[in-house]
């Protein structure tokens, strides 16, 4: 598999690896994919009072381009509002990383992870429900 330099860079030096406490009110967590499919992405956003994403972290089980896609997304998210974040499409990720056609699904997964994290944050903060753990339930 011939990867672009950008993929290799993110794969070898992944940005923003780690986790926030999923129970925190200002954290939204999205976990998408499945081990049997070869990709699991966990993306977390931390949203400040002004409604901007001030930090993002990820952990990914997957191929080089899945790791690179999630690493790139954490960089793209910082400083955006939730609505701006929802404008990030898989095509942007795939283009930025020059993903080969067989790896486009990695960018789709990364987009899904953004949506899942935002929806977790919103449901948490609108319903005031207990922080639900996306690791345990596939909402």
């Amino acid at each position, binding site marked *: 598999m011939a990867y672009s330099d950008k993929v290799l860079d993110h794969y070898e030096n992944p940005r923003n690896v780690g986790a926030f406490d999923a129970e925190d009110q200002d954290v939204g967590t999205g976990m998408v994919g499945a081990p049997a499919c070869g990709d699991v992405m966990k993306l977390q956003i931390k949203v400040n009072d002004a409604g901007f994403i001030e930090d993002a972290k990820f952990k990914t089980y997957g191929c080089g381009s899945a790791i690179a896609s999630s690493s790139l997304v954490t960089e793209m998210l910082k400083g955006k509002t939730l609505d701006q974040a929802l404008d990030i499409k898989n095509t942007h990720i*795939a283009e930025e990383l020059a993903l080969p056609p067989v790896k486009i699904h990695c960018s789709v997964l990364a987009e*899904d992870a953004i949506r899942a994290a935002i929806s977790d944050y919103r449901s948490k903060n609108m319903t005031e429900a207990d922080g639900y753990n996306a690791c345990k339930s596939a909402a």
Partner: protein
Amino acid sequence: MTDLPIYLDYSATTPVDLRVANKMFPYLTEVYGNPASRSHAYGWNAEAAVDLAREQVASLVNCDPKEIVWTSGATESNNLAIKGAAHFYAANGKHLITIKTEHKAVLDTVRELEREGFTATYLSPLENGLVDIEVFKAAIQPDTIVVSVMLVNNEIGVIQDIITIGNICREKGIIFHVDAAQATGKVEIDLEKLPVDLMSFSAHKTYGPKGIGALYVCRKPRIRLEAQMHGGGHERGFRSGTLPVHQIVGMGEAFSIAKAEMAEENARIRILRDKLWAGLSTVEEAYLNGDLAQRVPHNLNVSFNYVEGESLMMAVKGIAVSSGSACTSSSLEPSYVLRAIGREDELAHSSIRFSIGRYTTEADIDYAIDLIKNKVGQLRDLSPLWDMFKAGIDIASVSWVHGTESHREPEAVVA
């Protein structure tokens, strides 16, 4: 040339031993006659070289040189043995038996015979990779004519009990073929004692050149085959085609070296392999694939849980190894051998086959252990599955978000 990784893929192929290459060279430029030329010294000299090589090959496996038929490699030997025997003995029956963990050169040959009207049973091995003898016995039918079982598995290195299987075949009058491509120079082969009718060999797995192999065809009892390659009637009609003398000389020399050095070499390689496993077995959630005792010393096949196969292969670029997942252009297929011994997809994907050989050093092994430990650790630091495992969450019990959003059709990328 750029820096090459450390070679730990001797089961894929081996370098030609320099002693072998030096023997081959004059047969390209000086002794270039056709061994089938009966009327002049060019032909006679070439024939003498072929005869010597035939003796060298026969000597490693203790058979009569007349029982050795040159082919282009083990793939051709497997085709000639299985198709040749099935076609010749078709009047006696239509059923063949083989094992799910055989090389594709056997499995696809049997599949082809099924298309021609033969029937076949593909036995599942035990979890350690070995054939269950009782299951094998139960699979034999009155019309079974050919059984094919490999001596040493190419992926997991396990050694099958071909004495027991062969004795059962002899008792029932069934032709028994053994693919020994991965076995020469690694396990003792004594065809005078072994109840084997047909055995396939390859030169390039044993420090000889690519493109040359042989098939042992037993004379007592006499085994007959329908030729698959027709022409000048070379090799007593079993396989037509001008003999590639330099290749044959190379195979002979390689097998002669194997015979002389295998005891010492295997002892050295076993120490390296055991050192590798001692290092890797300390990695948490690392699983050995295939039986450890009933296995050639050259092979180690290990799965690392909670890391993904392709990223693992990317991470270990410093060593040249094989992965249990064949990353084809469109899909990531887990190894069918590991699936057949009951490994689930995730573990089959994240497996690495290390194969050690003549030029592997202790420093190579130390490097490999450090690299694997380091990179598996890094990938697990990235892996949400590893976190879940560490938190005591049963990953099998999680209902994953898939088949819905994440598997929708992607939007096309605008170039």
